[in-house]
């Protein structure tokens, strides 16, 4: 007799996600190939170097002199793919520092500089991951935050941890207040609420899933590292309401990195 495999709802989620991603890529990709109006800049330095690839190890194979024009095709990290406006155009990669000294016209100067601290204080979105110690177990938190203004931030977080007895998933939203947003190392206070889902281990005595309301409070530090990256460390206290008489308390220390926009 053959044991029939039943397709559960969760099975195949990654393969379905993969197909969706591929389809999305296929739909979006032709847009990136469209002929767009490329930005043309004039070289004001003595010359700019064109490298064969977007990295400092790649050799310089061409030089564009002052007063000549180049079109900017695209940008990858600190490098710009430019195309000369000769009869037979040549494409090469130019480092950001050299692009700083080019101009589109007398009145307009391109903004090629690195992301600065000012972009950090004016950020809108943050997405990041924490790794922490949740009551002596390792916990991973994913979070997506939005800054209303420089002092207030609302974020949705998903924390996942487990121990010998059960697996825990906490879905919660927090409101964070940053009293000193202009500091490079700025502290914040957070208050949150959400749901904690407990899935007991297969061999546990009590083996029913449960879902409890929970609130959290915490204190953290944000440090602007460089470009789009910031470091985040926090200590959070979670209180879950199991029933009318019982509450559970958990303490978590965590640190992580995030990207901001």
């Amino acid at each position, binding site marked *: 007799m053959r044991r029939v495999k039943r397709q559960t709802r969760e099975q195949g989620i990654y*393969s379905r996600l993969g197909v969706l*991603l591929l389809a999305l890529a296929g739909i979006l*990709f032709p847009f990136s190939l469209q002929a767009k109006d490329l930005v043309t800049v004039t070289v004001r330095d003595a010359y700019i170097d064109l490298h064969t690839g977007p990295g400092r190890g790649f050799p310089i194979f061409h030089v564009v002199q002052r007063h000549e024009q180049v079109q900017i095709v*695209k940008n990858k990290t600190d490098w710009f793919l430019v195309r000369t406006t000769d009869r037979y155009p040549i494409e090469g990669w130019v480092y950001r520092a050299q692009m700083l000294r080019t101009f589109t016209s007398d009145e*307009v100067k*391109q*903004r090629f500089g690195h992301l600065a601290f000012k972009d950090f204080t004016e950020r809108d979105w943050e997405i990041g991951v924490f790794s922490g110690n949740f009551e002596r177990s*390792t916990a991973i938190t994913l979070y997506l935050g939005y800054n209303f203004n420089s002092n207030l931030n609302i974020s949705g977080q998903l924390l996942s941890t487990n121990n010998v007895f059960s697996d825990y998933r906490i879905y919660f939203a927090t409101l964070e207040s940053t009293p000193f947003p202009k500091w490079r190392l700025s502290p914040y206070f957070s208050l949150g609420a959400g749901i904690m889902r407990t899935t007991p281990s*297969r061999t546990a005595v009590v083996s029913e899933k449960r879902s409890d309301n929970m609130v959290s409070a915490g204190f953290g530090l944000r440090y602007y590292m460089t470009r789009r990256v910031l470091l985040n460390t926090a200590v959070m206290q979670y209180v879950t309401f199991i029933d009318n008489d019982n509450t559970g308390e958990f303490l978590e220390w965590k640190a992580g990195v995030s990207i901001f926009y």
Partner: protein
Amino acid sequence: MEGRRFHILLNAALAVGLLLTVMAPATLWAADVSGNQPNQNLPVDEAIVQPEVQRRKIEKVAIDTENLEMGLFTGFYSADRYGTTSISGIRVAYHISEDLFFEVTGAQTTLNGLPEETLLQYYTVPDADRNLKYYNINLGYNFLPGEVYFNENWAFNFAFYLMGGVGNTEINAEQRSTLTTGAGMRVLLTDWMAFHINMRDHILRDRYSGIGQEQTIHNLEGFSSITFFF
């Protein structure tokens, strides 16, 4: 006056004097170079200095930025004591600089049973749960970037990178926090497409479906992938 104030005043006077001395011949030289007579009589209504200077506009014009990389990967996953199975998943990477990038991957596979299950004829795990899923987020460092040469006509952008990160592995419907380390090679076939070969080590603690003591195990994974830059 106090000695200190006098000292500062003297220094200021000296600085102004020096400045004037340097500037005077410079203005004469500028006048000569531009071809104007230094003592030209200008009409009264034509000012020498234009006080309203056009402010230079600084704009950020949209340039296509390709720092996001997405793709699928496929390979093998060697789960300790469960055997080796093929695995496939998705990876999304964001390049912060030419040296650093973040990567998020997720994959799943169906595990074989433990050897003891066949021998002892018991099943602890229903077939529907007999799978392994993981997701993790890694930080990657392009350790050795450069150019590689296929033959005398073809050169490709190449990078050997190291990765480390944290994640979560679900084995037989039980979650396990995981530490990942790995290394890989990336060859840029074109500007927007890359080919990778990776090896990765997942470090986690497992109890083998609740029948044993918890041990730290290393699950090795090897895969290759094609990714696209957006």
